[in-house]
Structures are given as structure tokens and as C-alpha cells.
């Protein structure tokens, strides 16, 4: 049992929770994730560790309400408990002083890119960050990202805040800018964004790291449900990743795999909405 100590609504779809998880907090590093179960009927949901406090024994989880499990998790409040929080899982981000790096966070992906940007900054890199979302309401942590970045570019798809652009536009300008040598790019966000970031950097031959959030069950390499096809064969996201070289990922296969349970997810969401309605009247 892991107690939720704080809850914060970051945007219409993103929520933050500070969760008691001393064993995870003790070992967590930027780039790793946990598996969470909401209750005894719950599925095992992988969530990236957005931050951690070793002394307090807490971790920060940020999630987007995209399916039944995350919607249900969103109804929990401080004082409630999650039945499972296990980790830290996966490899940590490879940290070094690469020179100038670009950190891109899209939507709820801003949360997991933050500890990576911070760690890269601490490792001596010049950090240029790009955060983006569909619209202003979905943006959060601009101040936090600014604090760990030498330069921060904010954009929205609809121009409701910052620059009206997809994250790939300022990225391309940075890559083309004669005064700048970008050594490495990190991108975390929707699968489609990570695909296009990888396609944008490929002609410039700039190494691009993406953090994949695939369907998982155990999270320890036991089931292989999370497998991603790279140019030279399959790998397991849970134990070989979650970070991969975006230029080697076969994106179309991955985009299709994450849609596999779409119909069942729909059923679960409808059933959840009905339950919520019933709870309101009774």
C-alpha cells in the first residue's frame, strides 16, 4: 500500500500525485518508471517517475487521464492509497556532459523530461528545452523547466500560448542554426511526436533519445508485451529501455501496437462513466 500525500491538478487532463514509496525513492534515477495498480481489480500501469525525494521517501507521478485506470486514479485524493507502486524499473538516462542538448516535452511528457533536463544541466550541459501542448490548458511546469534550462521555447498547436507551432519547428531551426552544435536530443511525449522528432533530427545525424510508454504487464521482462521493433530486432521496453535511439525505432509497428486494446479500452471507459453516474445519483 502506498499513500497519496498530495494531489495537484496540472491541467484539464494531467494530474500530479506525491506518493509515499520509500523503496522506490531510495533508488530512483531520471528516466526510470514505476508500475502502479489502483486497486485489487486494477491493471498494471507503467508511469514515469517525474521526481523523487530520497529523504522524504516520496516520488512524484504525473499522469494523463486517457483510459479507465488513469481516470480512476484521477478520482483518488490525498490520503487514499495505491495498492501497488513497484520500481524503480528500466534503465536510468545515460548522463554525461555532451555539450549542447535539446530536451523536448510534449503534453504530459513535460513531467518525465523535467528530471532528465535537470540531471543534464547538473552534468554540465547547455540545456535548450522545448515544451509544447495542443493548447494552453495542457501546459504545466513552465517555471520548473525554465529553472533547469539555459533556454526554454514554449509552443502550442493552436497558438493559445507561446509560439504557434509543433515542437519539431523550433527543433529544426535549432538544428539548422549555424551558431549551435546540438549533440543530443531527448524527446518524451505522444508517440507520434517522438516519431516526428526522430524524423526531424535524422537528416542532421543528431542522436535522439525517446522514452517509450508501451503496453506492459509485469514490467520486469517476463511477458514481452512491451516489445518494440528496432532496426536490428525486437527489444523489451521494460528492461532494455524505456529509452531508445529514436532513429532505430520502427515507429509504424509501435504506433499500431499501442492501439491493440483500443476496443476493450473503450468498453472499460464506458463502464467507468456509467459507474460514476450511478455513484452520483445514489
Amino acid at each position, binding site marked *: 500500500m502506498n499513500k497519496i500525500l498530495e494531489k495537484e491538478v496540472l491541467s484539464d487532463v494531467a494530474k500530479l500525485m506525491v506518493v509515499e514509496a520509500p*523503496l*522506490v525513492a531510495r*533508488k530512483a534515477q531520471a528516466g526510470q518508471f514505476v508500475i502502479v*495498480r489502483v486497486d485489487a*481489480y*486494477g*491493471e*498494471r500501469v507503467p508511469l514515469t517517475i517525474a521526481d523523487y525525494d530520497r529523504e522524504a521517501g516520496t516520488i512524484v507521478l504525473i499522469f494523463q487521464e486517457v483510459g*479507465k*485506470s488513469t481516470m480512476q486514479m484521477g478520482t483518488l485524493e490525498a490520503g487514499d492509497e495505491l*495498492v*501497488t*507502486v*513497484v*520500481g*524503480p*524499473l528500466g534503465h536510468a538516462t545515460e548522463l554525461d556532459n555532451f555539450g549542447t542538448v535539446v530536451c523536448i516535452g510534449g503534453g504530459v511528457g513535460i513531467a518525465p523530461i523535467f528530471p532528465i533536463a535537470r540531471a543534464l544541466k547538473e552534468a554540465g550541459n547547455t540545456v535548450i528545452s522545448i515544451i509544447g501542448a495542443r493548447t494552453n490548458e495542457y501546459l504545466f511546469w513552465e517555471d520548473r523547466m525554465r529553472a533547469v534550462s539555459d533556454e526554454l521555447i514554449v509552443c502550442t498547436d493552436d497558438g493559445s500560448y507561446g509560439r504557434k507551432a509543433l515542437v519539431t519547428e523550433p527543433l529544426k531551426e535549432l538544428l539548422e542554426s549555424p551558431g549551435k552544435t546540438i549533440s543530443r536530443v531527448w524527446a518524451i511525449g505522444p508517440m507520434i511526436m517522438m516519431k516526428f522528432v526522430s524524423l526531424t533530427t535524422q537528416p542532421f545525424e543528431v542522436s535522439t533519445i525517446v522514452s517509450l510508454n508501451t503496453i506492459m*504487464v*509485469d514490467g*520486469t*521482462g*517476463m*511477458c*514481452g*508485451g512491451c*516489445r518494440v*521493433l528496432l532496426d536490428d*530486432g*525486437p527489444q523489451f521496453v521494460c*528492461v532494455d529501455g524505456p529509452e531508445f535511439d529514436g532513429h532505430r525505432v520502427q515507429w509504424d*509497428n509501435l504506433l*499500431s*501496437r499501442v*492501439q*491493440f*486494446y483500443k476496443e*476493450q*479500452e473503450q*468498453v*472499460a471507459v464506458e*463502464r467507468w462513466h456509467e459507474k460514476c453516474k450511478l455513484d452520483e445519483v445514489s
Partner: protein
Amino acid sequence: MAKKTIIPTKTPMSEQPPAERIKNYDEVPYGYTPEQAIAEAKRCLQCKRPFCIEGCPVEIDVPGFLQLIAEGEFQGAINLIRETNALPAVTGRVCPQEEQCEAVCALCKRFESVAIGRLERFVADWEAAQGPLPVPELPPPTGKKVAVVGSGPAGITVAADLARMGHSVTVFEALHEPGGVLVYGIPEFRLPKAIVRRDIDYVCRMGVELVTDFVVGNTATLDELLEDFDAIFLGTGAGLPWFLNVPGENLNGVYSANEYLTRVNLMKAYLFPEYDTPIALGRRVATIGGGNVAMDSARTALRLGAEESLIVYRRSREEMPGRDEEIHHAEEEGIQFHLLTSPVAFHGDGKGQVKEIECLKNELGEPDASGRRRPVPVPDSNFRIPADIVIVAIGQSPNPLIPKTTSDLQTGRRGTVVVDEDTMKTSKRSVFAGGDVATGGATVILAMGQGRIAAKAIDEYLRTGEW
């Protein structure tokens, strides 16, 4: 002395009829009644030199417990079994007795062996029906602490034996439920989960502490555990599923058996949407492989509502590694067997979903290292089997998580942890290993047998400090 008349065949055990059982997840065999059990136990010749004990990896006193059953002393019988076997209700169901104790039964020379497995199951179930088990008296605590990594058959056996010796034991389990393969792998219709829980509860009531949601290697490394514990037993199983590595294997609808069975058994996907974890339901499900895991997968698919469930196996029926009973149950339930058939590619429907398996026909060649005749592909014999769900059940090897995070733990072929077979000692001081993590993948009972060897050696190490 009057010559004893032997009933030549085993007392039959009634089963759920196939047409009925493929619509539910209830156990297939019903088990013996007390009268049947007594009659069957009386078939034992009480040999002076009983080979059945040697045939048992955990050396159960078989003639002893059979004699007690014959006398109607069921409590005495189960107590005797429990002295060497922490999971009797489990092994009574899933042990390959026909290759072990029953294979060497003296009756086999002329008749069918005594149904030792069925009788073991009978007394274990009889005991459960009497209410909670009394905890055995334990010796005074030794003050030594042992960490057991993994709560499958090997780990539970080690934990029970060490607790009986007075050591303090903590079992670490990566998943949210204890039991390992007994819980995530073996289906409910073959091993009801309530039975596993009961046996594990018993071990916990002996003072063993159980910590779930703890991934050794990640949450803490072996070296970190050694700061708090005097010895460690690794019983992490063979959790890494093998794939065929043929084109199209990453299409939607292609599962590893581990994933398919874990979704259904551990996560209860068969009760979706009451439980959150989904599983894809296929109309025509093909399972690749010929072992028990393949049979479990194919039979699970039927129960999930598949119209057709197929086994695709590269050798012939004779070389199948699965237990006869499992293959027989699968046949009874209408599973179609496509033998001497090897998949070479998976083909999709153009939308990322698997649609067909491209296969080659095989002929049997010379025996290979396993002693079974090797499949030799017939050139240009390609043909396609339609299937909308494919389950790859061709084996697994140990999970590399712990060896990867432990610098001085030697591993061998296919990632198994290297052990001294007499003591189950690894290359790392204070660390022992047993079960599938050491063998690469065998049976529940072999894992338990190695657990017993390890427990003895751990006890000796804790007492003497000698490595």
C-alpha cells in the same frame, strides 16, 4: 500366507466432461472420495526397498503415507508429506508422477502403478476441508536472517524448510501476488489459485515474512540485501520468454505464452471488464509449441471463447515435451494438432493485425541432443495456417535482471545461474540458487527438490560460516 489380490488398474478419478469444462475455468479432475482413496492406497505393496521415494525429487515417504491413507489416518498421511513437501496440494496436481514416483512403482512391472499423485492431492484437499492448518512447533530462533528471492515453488520450499530450522526468512516477490509460476503461469482449471494461496499462507503463518512488489535487482541489488541478510536464495524462475525471431512476430495478436497466461491467470483478464486487464479474444487461436505451457495456452484460448484452438508443433506427437495427461486433456477438448509444422513467418491483414502463419512441413531426422528426433524441413513445403491470435510457447530462460546488476554472479548457458548441484551454491559468497533460474526451465517438483538441497546447505552455512 494368502496371496494378495491386486486390482490391476488405478482407481479412476472422475472429471468434468470436455464439452462442459471448455466453458468454465473450474478444475478438470474432481479428486478422489475417501473410499476411493482408501481402496487405491491399499494397492500399494509396501515394498521393503521402495523406489518411489528415490523417484521423488523431494523424497516423500510414499509407502508411509499410502499406508496411513489405507488405514484411514488422513491427518497422519498429510503430516508425513508436509515434512518434506511444502506444497502438497500443488504437486499432487502438477507433478509428472508418471515420470517419477509412479514410473518406478513395483506394480508397474505387471499392472498400473499406484495413483500416488491422486492420493497426495486427496490428503492435501482433505486437510484443507478440515479448516486452517495448525502451525507446527518451531525451534527457538537462530537469529540468522535469510532473503529468498522469488515466491515460486523453489522459494516457498526453501522458506518453509528454513523456517522449520528456526531461521528468520523474508521472501521478496516482484509481482503483487505470491506464487510465481503457480499463480501467473498455470491456469485455474489445472491448479486453482485458492490452493496455492492456502499453502503459501501456511508458510507465512510459520513466521516467514512476505514482501510483494519488490524487484530484486532494481528495488535493491543482491549486494544491498547482503547488508541486511546472512544468506540469499535466488528462486527467480525462468521468466524470459523466447520468441521465434521470424518476420512479422511483432504484429498485433502475437503473444508470448507468458504474457497470454499472465493476463488471464494473474491479472484475471477472463473476468474483463470486472477486472481492468484486457485480453484479445480470437476466433481461431494458434499456439506454437508442444509443452505443458503450450497446452495450458491452447486450452485457455478455448475457455476464452475461441471457436478453434490449434497446436502447431515442429516434431510429432511422440516427441512432445508436455505431460501425457495434459496432451490428452487438450485432445479431448477438441484442440487441433498440426504436427511436424514449423512457422517461418507471420503475415498481417495490412492493418497491423496477424492473419496467417506461414509454415514449413517437417520430416523427422536423427535424434538431437535431447534424444528426440530432430525436425528437418521439407524444402518448398510452405503453406499458411489462418489465425487471428498466435501464442508463442516455445520455452523461456532465466530473467537476466539479477545477474546484470550483480558483478560476481556467474551465469552459464542461456543465462542460467551457475550452481554447485550438491549445495546449490552460486559463484557469489552467501548466495544460493535453485529451480528454473539454475536449470533453465524444468518442473515445479524439480525446483522444490533443489530448494530442499539449498535449504540444507544454507542451514549448514549459517551454522558453520564456512563457504
